[in-house]
């Protein structure tokens, strides 16, 4: 019960805090809308128009990934800059339960992206919003957010060892958009990228949402999100433990 309360309060606090950040609003709303607009225009002009709903969901997931990448990747570094990292580590609950709500909050902020791209597409590009499986969509959405939030935990615990975490975030934004086929689809990508896409939650998250919205069977993709989320939790647990021990041994907790 205490753990549930800690997770909820941490999530709600960080969600409000991130909502006040202009940078996050840009990352999660304006940037995906811009990419969605370009993609709508490209698909409209192209020889294979495809489904604009496919584009809207992909662009929304791009925003969720960006939000997780910058928010999750910089989670521990922010605490360090704000001078609150020592308190986060010194409190009785394990450090992972303090960081986890923060990374899940960054993924939740990404929901603004999905909402923005769907509304934008509906208003200006006549994108229909009719769900093939509404119940599955309602399941796929929180499961995808959870999986990406847990991936954020892995980023938080590994990026902290790199002083310029923001640069690493810049580096990983486009490649993951590309490899997970958010706007391109996976079929066109070279075969060697497939295994990479399989271990990344955005691949399965966007697949689950698309199959729930456009048609198909999203059950496998939802299950993959859950399996990957569990794996990320285990990896994040060990990485955070390693970071904490290293920082305590070397007395470098507040130093980059």
């Amino acid at each position, binding site marked *: 019960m205490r753990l549930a309360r800690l997770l909820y309060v941490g999530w709600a606090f960080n969600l409000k805090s991130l909502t006040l950040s202009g940078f996050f609003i*840009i990352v999660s709303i*304006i*940037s995906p809308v811009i990419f969605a607009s*370009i993609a709508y*225009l490209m698909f409209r*002009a*192209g020889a294979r128009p495809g489904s604009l709903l496919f584009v809207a969901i992909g662009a929304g997931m791009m925003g969720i990934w960006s939000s997780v990448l910058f928010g999750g990747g910089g989670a521990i570094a922010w605490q360090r800059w704000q001078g609150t990292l020592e308190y986060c580590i010194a409190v009785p609950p394990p450090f992972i339960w303090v960081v986890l709500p923060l990374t899940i909050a960054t993924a939740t902020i990404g929901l603004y992206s999905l909402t923005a791209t769907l509304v934008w597409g509906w208003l200006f590009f006549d994108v229909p919003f009719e769900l093939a499986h509404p119940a599955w969509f309602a399941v796929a959405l929180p499961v995808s957010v959870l999986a990406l939030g847990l991936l954020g935990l892995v980023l938080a615990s590994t990026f902290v060892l790199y002083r310029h975490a923001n640069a690493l975030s810049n580096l990983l934004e486009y490649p993951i958009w*590309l490899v997970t086929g958010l706007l391109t689809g996976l079929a066109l990508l070279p075969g060697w990228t497939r295994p990479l896409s399989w271990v990344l939650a955005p691949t399965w998250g966007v697949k689950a949402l698309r199959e729930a919205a456009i048609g198909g069977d999203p059950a496998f993709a939802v299950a993959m999100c859950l399996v990957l989320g569990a794996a990320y939790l285990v990896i994040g647990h060990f990485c955070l433990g390693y970071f904490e021990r290293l920082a305590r041994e070397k007395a470098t907790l507040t130093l980059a």
Partner: protein
Amino acid sequence: MTVSLRIFFIGGLTAYRALINWLSPWIFVPTLVVAPIFQILLFVYIGRNAGVQSDEFFVVGNAVQYASIPCLFSMTNAIAGERSQQTLMYILVTPAGRLPLFLGRALPVIANAMFVAAFSLFVSGALLHIDVPFSAWGPIALVIFVSTFSCTGLGLICAGIALRVRETAVLNNIIFGLLLIFTGANVDIDELPGWMQAISERVPLTHGIQAARQVANGAPLGDVRGLLATEAVIGVAYTIVGYLLLRFLERESRKRASVQIA
């Protein structure tokens, strides 16, 4: 005259080195070397998926468009960075001429942006087997120079706004995103609605990208001189507006005693 030249060249370079933290290879390589190549690959694959345009269209367009990252962010930082380091007031009380002081900071920005655009074009072209004739690289360099100069003018306007606005990263990210749409880097200008085409004709990089595409296809420089001249005129106009805006906001900051605060 000598003093002005010293301020322009040495002062500009010193300020650039002091204020632009991405000169560290740990930031420069991921942000300005690797990221543009993946931006190009992303749009190439979206284009293939949508069945629109050729790979070359996206490679050339995005390589030149990505020059806007150093142009916008460096130029803004070269002015606003003084404020965050608490040195802006010392700069503004000096008797140094404002023209060499502000414009001198633009020169290293242009050089950096040219490198970013040319490197992205070369590497992504090689990756995607885009055949750019060897003889075209000279004219392409000139096109990139004019385009980066033009976009640096826009960066100067952002630097002026940065004297009043705190969230400069947000501002620059929005402008970068808008340039992705309006410059025609990814969507042919003719495919845009009329009101968007009207804006496209007036923003930096649009004509530069068109010229770069033609030159990469083997057109002689003479064929694109009109596009280059238009790009240069747009650059001069933006630079003048940016300079005047900086002077105006400097005076306003003095009046309001807000030089060090946004």
